[in-house]
């Protein structure tokens, strides 16, 4: 952890050694923990649980240390605003122009605002604490779910450790965002399903926890709610197809409950979500259609990961595929009848299916990462189980002498070294291909459209100024990071569709029409767009040149507003200029 803290400090000052320290810092904590979890010397539940939770604390600290003083990721800032609104009004479901759909899923904001109200902490501090506790509860719930599913301490700990290699685990799912609030309760619902045995007395408490968890997920996050319906539905289906000795209907009961609660919430409270999720879905379907029609996927000209990182990602996916193939082979050979084992297998296949999304359309990589948050749960269970049983499954001593000594009978082929090496490969692949992207593994100098790397003092100051000097809810055109900041700190109504205003070299009638049709009051202009290509591939929320930028925006295009009659330059901090265009 200290190594990564030094790496982050070095990144902020541009030190060349920082990247090396970052990668070494990741490995020196992660690998020994996995080794110990898979070791035959593991003493039992206490040690396994402490190792899993220790790793969770470590990983959350890596996220916190990246930005300990403020939220920087757009979604976190949007939820910072939602929480602030709840605190100011004392009411839920209040409009939030930064992320309108979040108003219908107030779970996280309730937790955050309660913590602020009861401790007096700032929203940022309370948010960081809430996200940290939710992360620990999630890992603890995953651990106890695997234990209830019949897993040994080693398997439960190893599942948690391997899940830590999910693409969005390190940062995205530890942020102060609504998915973070819902995830632990998804695990808890599955745990309750497994624990709830209706033929025995005392099942009611599990049913209570299960139903409460379903309700919390439904009112906290839309995607997690849908994943919950899918997961519980899959478990119910597997229970019906492979009935256990004593009938278990808990999965079916909870799946039906989840469907009713989620559908009721969407229809009665959050029907806006249908359009919100429909747009990316349609875009993805259009990309799929294009691919199947032989047109291929749009090729990005934005720089990608370094070659060595792509190699690691490919090797990691291949190793997971090997584990899936082996688990499937064992299940078929044994004519497995355990419903949950089949559910895990199907879930793991779903992981590979959703991994393929990354090649579909511009939003593919993001959607693949989002989906992996859920599909990687069964994948990590399967991977851990296969690694734990690896050697026994290979039937050592049945291979010919020298071949056996070099392979299955060798010391390196024991679960601990082999599993630790494989898990380390997965972890490196996740850090390389997950969030944060490779160009912001370390904090550092300002990057245009660089998410966390775009939130610097000058931008934040300008955003606060807009709210203080201009009032709230003006229509503000801005670039990607500017739109996030003015809509949260500045409380403005962001306009992300005005890219052409910035791309046009000369002010003309079309620009006037854009101003009028989008009812723009102010323009946020970051002249650094003329110095850098966008790190994320887009300058604007809606960017007609997305992923196709080969040169920065010419400076003349950005300063043309200085000389337009009726346009006032009301704020100038060097890089950020704010124009009042109401008189244009």
């Amino acid at each position, binding site marked *: 952890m200290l190594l990564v803290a030094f790496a982050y400090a070095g990144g902020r000052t541009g030190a060349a050694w920082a990247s090396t320290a970052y990668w070494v810092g990741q490995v020196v904590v992660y690998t020994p923990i996995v080794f110990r979890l898979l070791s035959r010397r593991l003493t*039992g539940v206490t040690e396994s649980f402490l190792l899993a939770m220790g790793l969770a604390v470590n990983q959350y600290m890596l996220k916190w240390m990246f930005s300990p003083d403020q939220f920087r990721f757009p979604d976190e800032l949007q939820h910072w605003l939602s929480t602030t609104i709840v605190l100011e009004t004392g009411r839920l479901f209040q409009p939030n122009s930064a992320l309108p759909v979040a108003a219908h899923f107030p779970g996280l904001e309730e*937790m955050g605002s309660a913590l602020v109200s*009861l401790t*007096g902490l700032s929203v940022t501090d309370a948010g960081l604490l809430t996200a940290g506790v939710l992360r620990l509860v999630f890992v603890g719930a995953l651990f106890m779910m695997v*234990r209830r*599913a019949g897993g040994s301490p080693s*398997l439960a700990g190893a599942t948690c450790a391997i899940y830590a290699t999910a693409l969005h685990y390190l940062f995205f799912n530890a942020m102060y965002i609504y998915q973070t*609030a819902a995830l632990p309760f998804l695990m808890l619902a599955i745990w309750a399903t497994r624990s709830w045995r209706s033929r025995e007395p005392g099942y009611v408490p599990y049913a209570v926890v299960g139903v409460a968890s379903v309700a919390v997920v439904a009112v906290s996050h839309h995607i997690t709610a849908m994943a919950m319906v899918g997961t519980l539905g899959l478990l119910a289906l597997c229970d019906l197809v492979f009935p256990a000795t004593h009938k278990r209907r808990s999965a079916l009961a909870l799946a039906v409950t989840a469907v009713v609660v989620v559908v009721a919430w969407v229809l009665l409270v959050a029907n806006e979500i249908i359009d919100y999720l429909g747009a990316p879905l349609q875009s993805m379907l259009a990309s799929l259609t294009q691919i199947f029609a032989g047109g291929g996927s749009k090729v990005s000209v934005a720089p990608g990961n370094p070659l060595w990182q792509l190699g690691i990602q490919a090797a990691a996916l291949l190793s997971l595929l090997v584990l899936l193939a082996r688990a499937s082979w064992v299940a078929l050979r044994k004519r497995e009848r355990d419903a949950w084992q089949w559910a895990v297998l199907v879930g793991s296949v779903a992981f590979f299916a959703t991994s393929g999304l990354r090649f579909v359309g511009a939003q593919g990589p993001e959607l693949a990462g989002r989906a992996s948050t859920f599909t990687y749960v069964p994948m990590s269970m399967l991977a851990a189980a296969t690694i734990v049983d690896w050697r026994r499954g290979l039937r050592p001593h049945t291979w010919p002498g020298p071949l056996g000594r070099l392979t299955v009978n060798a010391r390196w082929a024991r679960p601990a070294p082999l599993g630790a090496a494989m898990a380390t490969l997965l972890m490196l692949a996740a850090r390389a291909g997950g969030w944060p992207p490779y160009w912001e593994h370390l*904090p550092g100098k300002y990057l245009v459209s660089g998410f966390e790397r775009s939130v610097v003092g000058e931008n934040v100051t300008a955003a606060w100024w807009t709210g203080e000097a201009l009032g709230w809810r003006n229509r503000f055109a801005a670039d990607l990071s500017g739109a996030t900041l003015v809509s949260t700190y500045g409380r403005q109504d962001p306009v992300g569709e005005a890219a052409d205003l910035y791309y046009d070299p000369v002010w003309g009638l079309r620009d006037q029409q854009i101003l009028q049709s989008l009812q723009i009051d102010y323009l946020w202009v970051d002249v650094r767009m003329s110095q850098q290509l966008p790190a994320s591939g887009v300058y604007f929320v809606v960017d007609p040149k997305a992923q196709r930028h080969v040169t920065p925006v010419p400076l003349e295009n950005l300063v043309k507003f200085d000389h337009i009659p009726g346009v006032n330059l009301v704020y100038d901090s060097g*890089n950020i200029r704010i124009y009042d265009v109401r008189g244009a």
Partner: protein
Amino acid sequence: MRPAALHRDAVPVLAAVLAVVAAAAQWVPLPAVRVPTGLLLVFVLPGLALAAALFPGRVLSIVERLVLPPALSLAVLVLGGLGMFAAGIPLGRASWTALTTSVTVAAAVVARLRRDTAGTGSAAETAMFGRVLAVDREKMTVGAAVWRLAPLALAVLLIAGAGVLAMRSAGTGGEPFTGLSLVPSPAPDGQQQAPPQTPRTVQVAIRCEEGEATRYSLRIADPNGFERTFDVALEPGGRWSQTLEVPASGTVTADLFKNGGQAPYRSAHLAGVR
């Protein structure tokens, strides 16, 4: 009654007492009191009492007894918050305190009532991947505890050190800047906008984030001969603002010069009546 059973019975009572104390502490204006008691009400006490009420026997493993309290406490906030909102109760310190405290006390009462009817079921389950679950209960000796706590203490020290380093370095590497703004002053409440030919009021402001004390010269002028100048010295983080009257027509330009420079360092302009 066996000591372990006594211990389990004491948990909900202790939770209820602590909840009442923590609720009272919410009106103590000391962060050192409010923060820990608030954390207990938000993350621990409601869930602890609820877990004791729902699972009074030995059904849960140690891990489950550790994970359920914060999870159930957060669920109380989410579902209870929705209930309060539906009932028209504003969400604030008083309502959150009342919710968490009342849930804790009510659950503690239920736990006390259910203590005699508690079963002693185990968590044994069916096999998965060939492994069979048994609720593990390790015997922890003093020596073993010391051996395990020593690395924990070291880990806490390392985390604290890394945290301090992160906090200190978070403020480094920022680019210095100065912000200049020029906006029309809003008309006072209830007052109409000034007639077109009367001077208009504008507000000009400077914010210094240069990393060192900086001298500025500010010139505000229009093409028709109006000019005002100000000399301003600001420390890092310092602000300066001035409200002044400028001619109604013509474009007023504010040029900010830094440390005696000849070229404007920052500029802003406002068009007048056309």
